[in-house]
């Protein structure tokens, strides 16, 4: 039971790294038009949902942080607490989980459909490497866009937190942002960006992998999409712990 499972897991791991290697080996011949198309897809398709999720997260973080620190610390320090939480953890992880559900699922279902309808084979037979012409642009665009979306999510969450702190908790904007800036470290911000880069890479490569390894039929496409979202999310959380431990541990 355990041995076949491990063998299968290792086979997938090997195939995944082979896919990454073959894809990245085409980096010098990257098709700009395809990368731009993918950048547009990632950014535009996820911008609204990232803004929405980040705003609500910022708002609830204010309320719940105030609940936790009331009587222990002045509420003027909310800006510092929310700022750290958002830039270090919530911004990158939330953005990544949204991207896994939105862009990751879209990539996996598209590639899985191409796979089960022989479109990937058709590319190969034409002498066109799907890893380089289909997967690499998606991986490149996703890795590039995710940190930018993280910055955008950070901005939206902190802004919405400041507004709620002001309206609901009577914390002055100046006090909120003063405490935010007093405790702002570039390392925190850059750590979030780094997480974004790595999460973007994980989501796109995992989604492409589940797509290319899908089995026949509509059910196979559905399974590939589901696996893309689940595996991406799990790996994001796993690497969040690893990166967090290395940078802030």
């Amino acid at each position: 039971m355990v041995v076949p499972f491990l063998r299968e897991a290792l086979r997938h791991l090997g195939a995944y790294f082979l896919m990454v290697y073959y894809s990245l080996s085409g980096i010098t011949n990257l098709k700009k038009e395809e990368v731009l198309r993918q950048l547009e897809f990632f950014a535009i398709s996820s911008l609204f949902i990232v803004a929405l999720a980040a705003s609500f997260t910022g708002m609830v973080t204010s309320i719940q942080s105030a609940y936790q620190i009331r009587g222990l610390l002045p509420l003027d320090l909310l800006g510092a607490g929310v700022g750290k939480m958002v830039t270090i953890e919530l911004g990158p992880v939330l953005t990544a989980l949204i991207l896994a559900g939105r862009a990751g699922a879209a990539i996996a279902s598209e590639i899985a459909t191409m796979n089960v309808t022989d479109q990937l084979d058709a590319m190969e037979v034409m002498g066109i490497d799907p890893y380089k012409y289909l997967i690499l642009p998606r991986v490149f665009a996703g890795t590039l866009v995710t940190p930018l979306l993280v910055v955008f999510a950070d901005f939206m969450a902190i802004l919405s937190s400041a507004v709620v702190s002001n309206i609901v908790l009577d914390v002055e904007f100046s006090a909120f942002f003063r405490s935010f800036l007093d405790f702002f470290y570039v390392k925190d911000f850059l750590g979030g960006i780094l997480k974004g880069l790595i999460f973007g890479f994980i989501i796109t490569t995992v989604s492409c992998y589940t797509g290319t390894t899908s089995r026949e039929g509509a059910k196979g496409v559905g399974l590939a999409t589901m696996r893309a979202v689940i595996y991406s999310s799990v790996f994001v959380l796993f690497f969040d712990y690893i990166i967090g431990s290395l940078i802030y541990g």
Partner: protein
Amino acid sequence: MDEIVRVENVVKTFLNKRVLNSISFSIQKGEAVCILGKSGAGKTVLLKIIVGLLRPDKGNVFLFGRNIFKIKREELFRLRENIGFVFQNSALFDSLTVFENVAYPFLKREISDEEVKEKVLEMLRLVEMQGTENLMPAELSGGMKKRVAIARALIMEPKLVIYDEPTAGLDPATGRSLVEIIKRLNEEKKTTSIIVTHDLEVASTLADRVLFLREGKIVKEVKPEDLKEGLDVEIIKFFNLREV
């Protein structure tokens, strides 16, 4: 004559079922060879092995004199640029228009847009699909998809064209017109071709040589004239073939 394809003792097994059992044959330049067999005989698997999409458990495949399982991946992709493959289900890119599908093989080539346009329109004319450039594959019938797939396979003027069940799923009239198009293009372009089918009529019209595939083995090789003269009753019965 130059040898284009050589298949040597190819064996392939799926889940303990031997699909191909020591298959060997070769195809010379300019030949049109038809592989005939019942559904599930392993015809598509054989084609996928010939172009390196599947790896056999044993045996070798030589394309244009190169053993495709002993060359680098990049080299295999370069070799495949000389092949046109018409898939059973057409395998058109469903997010691209007919024009973009036919032009797709030029993706890697440094060639002007004007030249691409000229070649694509000419190819669409040859397969009698002019005026459909802006349609999406979902807007095409099965026969039209096959024609676009043929245009895409032939646009680079490949040395070898492979047709996997070119008439499968088409009504007899559409199938016949498609066979006529393939025959005309084969004669015009003088390409080497492999046609996989279960239809005797297709085989007798298109092939110079017909190989019968049964239980993973080539069991008989005939000339198309032999098919027209009448095939062994045993073979017809065994393959459930439609007589010419």
